[in-house]
């Protein structure tokens, strides 16, 4: 709907205050990079032409398109020398989706729309693509709308997560807030019974108020930029309830099992949140849909 591949029947979507319904269709679409599950590379065009499709529409010069395509291939981790002249059929699914991402970014659109981009890719390649895209996103700073049915992917990729159900927005929050206080039973079941554990993955030690260092050199230590999830698993592995936290070589404090469990415990306002939403109180089983 954002790029009007599906037309809007009711309501509106605005980009920088401008309604997408009022923008000219092709102009709107050329400003939104689109990546979707089926990738949809043009099989009859070289990688260079694929990436250059939108720039060509915008009237870029050949040399500019070429250098841009090479730059983007490098950015997504492909070979900017040899791969430009090859055809999509010569690449694996994961590589094709990297090209798809490069193509979507070709004309440097302010917005990227990613519709289950890594859905059809095997788990190992998907994990790598997610990490690469996160790194990429930190470099390019764009607004990315990322659609997924995989809550773990949403938690990993999203700054803010919107949960949709039957066409309605159920909750819009950060991953941490979503896991800490789901708006209703549907969201709670969707984020999973183990949401407490999942929260540990999105929180890092350096976000916590640490206890003073244990002073005892024999206790194990973890880096302050590790997740609580990792810290907990270290505790379990070491058979200890307290870990020293280090930043580089300097000890910055320690974390105890109690600190972590207090974080998992539901915060005070969880009930207030539940009451605020009209769909609360439904049995969890009803929330099985997406």
């Amino acid at each position: 709907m954002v790029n009007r591949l599906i037309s809007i029947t009711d309501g509106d979507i605005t980009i920088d205050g401008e309604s997408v319904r009022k923008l000219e269709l092709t102009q709107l679409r050329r400003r939104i990079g689109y990546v979707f599950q089926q990738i949809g590379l043009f099989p009859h065009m070289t990688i260079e032409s694929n990436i250059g499709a939108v720039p060509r529409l915008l009237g870029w010069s050949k040399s500019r398109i070429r250098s841009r395509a090479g730059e983007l291939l490098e950015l997504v981790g492909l070979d900017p020398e040899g791969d430009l002249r090859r055809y999509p059929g010569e690449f694996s699914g994961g590589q094709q989706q990297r090209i798809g991402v490069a193509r979507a970014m070709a004309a440097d659109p302010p917005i990227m729309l990613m519709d289950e981009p890594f859905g059809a890719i095997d788990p190992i390649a998907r994990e790598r693509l997610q990490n690469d895209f996160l790194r990429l996103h930190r470099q390019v700073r764009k607004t990315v709308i990322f659609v997924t049915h995989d809550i773990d992917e949403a938690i990993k990729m999203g700054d803010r997560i919107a949960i949709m159900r039957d066409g309605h927005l159920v909750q819009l929050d950060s991953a941490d807030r979503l896991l800490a206080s789901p708006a209703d039973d549907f969201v709670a079941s969707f984020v999973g019974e183990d949401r407490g554990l999942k929260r540990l993955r999105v929180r890092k030690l350096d976000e916590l108020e640490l206890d003073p260092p244990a002073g005892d050199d024999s206790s194990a230590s973890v880096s302050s930029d590790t997740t609580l999830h990792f810290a907990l698993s270290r505790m379990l592995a070491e058979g200890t309830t307290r870990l020293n936290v280090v930043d580089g070589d300097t000890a910055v404090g320690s974390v105890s099992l109690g600190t972590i469990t207090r974080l998992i415990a539901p915060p005070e306002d969880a009930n207030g949140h539940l009451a605020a939403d009209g769909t609360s109180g439904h049995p969890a089983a009803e929330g099985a849909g997406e």
Partner: protein
Amino acid sequence: MTLALQPVFAAGGPVIPNFGGGSNCVVQNHQFCMSWFLDNFHSVFGPAIVQHIVLTLIAVGVGMPIAFGAAIFAYKQNWFETPFSLFAAFLYTIPSLALFELLVQVTGINRFTAEVGLVSYTLLILFRNTLTGLRGVPPATIEAAQAMGLTPRQTLLRVELPLATPAIMAGVRIATVTTISLATVAAYIGGGGLGALIFDAIQSGFKTEFVAAGALAILLAIVADILLVLLQRVITPWSRRRLQTT
């Protein structure tokens, strides 16, 4: 068409040799006389081959735009497929001699009549293949094109038609080979070409001319097919390049 090579006269007795002072081979009307063939290639077969090629080129050249336009229209407007298919299939099913005979009553015995007949036989194949090719374009590719802001016209020209090319070319190959072969029958109504030599030979009973013209028509079809395959490879370089390991 292909029965042109059957030894129709094999069982017959000596035929009156009216070729004036020919070689022994010709006088005795052997199955094939190489020396006569070579002697007359330039004056008899050469022009007939050229005429045959022109006949075919015009037929496919006229049939292609008609079928092509109809297929694109049917691709955009689904309702058009059935009526045009029926029309083309109807033309295609009429036995060639019957169609030619019917046409003669309208346009007379001449090259034009022959072309009308030949064109009508190319339509079904070219229409079907073009439409199938267009419909075979992956929906994801079209969605990507639309999402990128290509207009419907740009999508057709830059994405859909190029991707339909292998199917279209397959249609052109079949249509061309069929037309080369049908064009021999079109000589019956004044099409000329190699078919005229075959009809000549049937009347005179001169086997060498008959065999040579038939063989040349086959050769022409094979050569045309090879050339079209090569052309297709040149214009669709992407279709042969695939990931080797999966």
